[in-house]
């Protein structure tokens, strides 16, 4: 049941061209930049120009020559110097980058483990008749769409160590490097566990009751039912949620920018945040592009492994 008219291209092409222009082009540009050392130089030119009066006429000296003044013209010149693989070689010796990779890996690994397990547990918990369930579910959805930067600032007020609502714990939430990374993870867990929960709950409710009743004839153990029946049925959903969360978590920027600004020290500086700072704060565009490509490569490795599974979903 598929049409083959050549009209099809008028439908599809605008979107395809748009995406090509706005992603392939910048990616190519980035790659080009990664092979260059890009420096901004401010050239200050002093020029002698005639002084003008309000009517725009030159002001004349008594001897008839125009009065001159010095005008300073600043011009930013970007210089592109081809440096071959230098930026990529730097990746291997840059300890700040290595720390950022470690921070990102811990953030993604620990964060996703908590979100997936907790999300699944909550979905099992909510997958039964209870009074006011849809209201509880609605409240659980709220964190997903809160502005991530706002969530970061919000948790800043909560993690405030003197007088915040968690101050009584005495935990150095944001001032201790390890705790600060944990706090960043907590915000992500708060925002995205509800997403995992919601999707798993939808998947659980898609499992027909007859099937579960049939299973009850075989075993009374909830654990066996979960492991032998529910988990395999949920597997495709778990894979897609894991993949989506992985892709999003690898990009983490907003929470870091608002909650910890990468600190204390570089303890919570993620790869995205490092690339951003290198490129737009220190204007080391070439190296920033190399960092961005490192991040892209790390994401692609995992996505490629899972690619076949994703493709079958849309086939």
């Amino acid at each position, binding site marked *: 049941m598929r049409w083959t008219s050549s009209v099809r291209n008028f439908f599809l092409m605008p979107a395809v061209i748009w995406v090509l222009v706005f992603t392939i082009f910048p990616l190519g540009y980035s790659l080009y930049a990664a092979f260059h050392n890009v420096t901004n130089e401010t050239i200050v030119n002093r020029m002698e120009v005639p002084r003008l009066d309000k009517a725009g006429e030159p002001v004349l000296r008594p001897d008839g020559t125009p009065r001159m003044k010095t005008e300073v013209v600043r011009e930013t010149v970007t210089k592109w110097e081809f440096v071959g693989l230098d930026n990529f070689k730097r990746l291997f010796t840059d300890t700040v980058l290595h720390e950022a990779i470690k921070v990102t890996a811990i953030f993604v690994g620990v964060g996703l483990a908590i979100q997936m397990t907790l999300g699944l547990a909550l979905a099992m918990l909510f997958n039964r008749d209870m009074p006011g369930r849809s209201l509880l579910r609605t409240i659980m959805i709220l964190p997903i769409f809160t502005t991530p930067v706002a969530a970061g600032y919000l948790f800043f007020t909560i993690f405030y160590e003197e007088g915040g609502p968690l101050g009584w714990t005495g935990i150095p939430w944001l001032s201790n490097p390890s705790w600060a990374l944990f706090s960043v993870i907590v915000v992500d867990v708060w925002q995205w566990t509800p997403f995992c929960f919601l999707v798993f709950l939808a998947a659980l409710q898609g499992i027909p009751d007859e099937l579960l009743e049939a299973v009850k004839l075989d075993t009374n153990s909830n654990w066996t039912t979960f492991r032998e029946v529910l988990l395999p049925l949920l597997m495709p959903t778990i894979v897609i949620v894991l993949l989506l969360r992985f892709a999003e978590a690898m990009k983490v920027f907003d929470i870091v920018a608002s909650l910890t600004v990468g600190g204390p020290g570089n303890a919570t500086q993620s790869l995205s945040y490092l690339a951003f700072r290198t490129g737009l704060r220190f204007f080391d565009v070439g190296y920033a592009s190399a960092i961005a490509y490192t991040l892209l490569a790390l*994401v692609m490795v995992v996505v490629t492994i899972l690619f076949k599974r994703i493709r079958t979903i849309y086939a």
Partner: protein
Amino acid sequence: MPDAHAAELPATRRRMSMTDSLCWLLAIAVTLLFFFPLYWAVSTSLRNPADTFTVTGIGIPFINFTPTLDNFRTELSTPEGFRALRTSLFVSITATLLALMLGMPAAYALARFRYWSNADITVWFLSQRVLPPVATLIPFYIVFRNIGLLDTPYALILINTTFVLPFVVVIMRQTFLDLPVELEESAMVDGASYFGAFMRIALPLAAPAAAATAMIIFAFTWNEFLFSSSLGITQTKMMPAHMAGAVDTRGIQFWFMATRALIAMIPPVLLALLAQRYIVRGLTLGAVKG
């Protein structure tokens, strides 16, 4: 042993309902835990600055302190705050409409026409979402600076449209697939063109899903921070960037932080609640039907 069996049934039922009510209480506790940060924001935003750290208990308005709307009044009366709100609305609405206009025909095409591989094209659109945005940030920054689009809403509109386009393509493709093709084919027997069938038959039927998609991508555009803080430097700050900027200049003022966070959060959260039925499908990019 029929007697033993009969005696066991009610007991089992009682034990089951015991588990159920424990689960219910646990579910309420967890929900409250997840709700706490939002509640805390509301509570902080209603406090007098002087009360910020002195409240007792868990800061319940009227019981632990006298609430005031002063923070909201102050915040909304600044011209910067108002301008940020306006920029956010303009960018989000335009990007949403643009993404729908580009994405819906593509989605329809992928649902109805045969290409060399519809699945591969769909996944190609999806792969955008996997791309770390920071990899395109610097090129965009340089190019927009060179062509004079830096610090204009148009730069943000172009970029956000690109980011949300995959959502439209993938979600709407699934929606069109679920519609019966016979309606469109009979319209075409009656002389409608492919375009006519799309506009007059498929589009009206897909309208509810399109509206929900629009709400979800509006929320995404609204929440976007990396580009809006890098490219909208002074004149075109959107709400999230405005919030971050105020922290830089004014220092940390918890009451304003909470107030501003709430103002930034309310539109996307409200829209998401309206689109609740489509959230699972939307956020899993059509892979899981909610």
